């Protein structure tokens, strides 16, 4: 749920990175963090296990400058991808404005992608949202791996409503900002309708 503060002329929106475990959600956030000017970002907070698996969420506040005199801030969150952290995932979707699904392009992860996408639909619904209408973008990550499935196949399997899709190699930053931008755009367009 976006938060418009007329007193301080600020708008805050929440974007959540969703997807199967080890798919690259945290890596997306880390790249955004590294490539953003210090004055435009806050701390990157990672609540992770000792082996760097996301335990609860990663959080990055991002300041994108002004639109119509309003300071625009995006709060980026990732969810823990591992199946058994479902209760946490549900919590993080509370008040979400836009979702980025980070799919793992590897053949062996196709089932995990589908399961996670199903889980996203379900958890959005539990929070009173509908994947069919919420701002949404789909990222095919790990395009550089030899075991990556062909783009068309991924598209057919995972695209659900003609949402924008992006091929990405998150550690190198390929597709990272493009995906974020696509969702941010939709979120701001949604605001203009309210």
């Amino acid at each position, binding site marked *: *749920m976006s*938060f*418009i*503060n*007329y*007193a301080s002329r600020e*708008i*805050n929106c*929440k974007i959540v990175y969703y997807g199967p475990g080890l798919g690259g959600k945290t890596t997306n956030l880390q790249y955004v963090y590294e490539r953003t*000017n210090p004055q435009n970002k*806050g*701390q990157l*907070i990672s*609540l992770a296990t000792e082996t760097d698996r996301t335990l*609860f*969420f990663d*959080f990055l*506040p991002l300041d*994108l*400058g002004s*639109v*119509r*005199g*309003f300071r*625009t801030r995006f*709060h980026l969150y990732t969810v823990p991808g591992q199946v058994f952290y479902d*209760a*946490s995932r*549900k*919590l*993080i979707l*509370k*008040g979400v404005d836009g979702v980025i699904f980070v799919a793992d392009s590897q053949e062996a992860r196709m089932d995990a992608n589908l399961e996670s996408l199903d889980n996203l639909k379900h958890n959005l619904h539990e929070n009173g949202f509908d994947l069919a209408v919420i701002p949404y973008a789909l990222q095919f990550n790990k395009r550089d791996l030899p075991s990556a499935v062909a783009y068309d196949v991924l598209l057919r399997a995972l695209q659900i409503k003609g949402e924008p899709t992006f091929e990405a190699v998150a550690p190198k930053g390929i597709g990272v*900002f493009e995906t974020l*931008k696509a969702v*941010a*755009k939709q979120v*701001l*367009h949604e*605001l*203009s*309708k*309210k």
Partner: protein
Amino acid sequence: MTMFGSNLIMYEEEFDRINAVLSRLWMDANAKLVFLVDKNGQQIAAKGDLDKVDATSLASLTAGNVAATDGLAKLIGEKEFSILFHEGERDNIHISIVGQRLILVLIFDERSSLGLVRLRVRKAAAELEEVLTQMASKAAEQGEAPASPFAEITDEDIDALFTE
């Protein structure tokens, strides 16, 4: 004027009242920092020494903390745990839920005490709830929310955000 949620709009008057409540609480409880966040982790108002703390992260982690604890409460059949308290070596954090949708956070050290904090928070929470009720009834009276400042937003506006 601030808006949070689809049906709750905060005008200058309520914002001032909230700030006054926080200021009084900050003094009466001898706190280092007092702040109010909504359950989604957005900071609404604060009073105290904000320079030494990353307020955005504090707000987001507080909301995460409350959300996780809420989940725990539901698991064991409780409606909510309305107070959370974290005790540190130097500083302590007292978190309480106000009117089901706001979170009141208070950071204090040995110059105060848990007893004093609980006492003062209870009073402040009641006042904040009153403000919330007033906001809700105002919203009900006035019906439609004011037009979004983004109603006229263009693709160029949005593109401009991403060009660095």
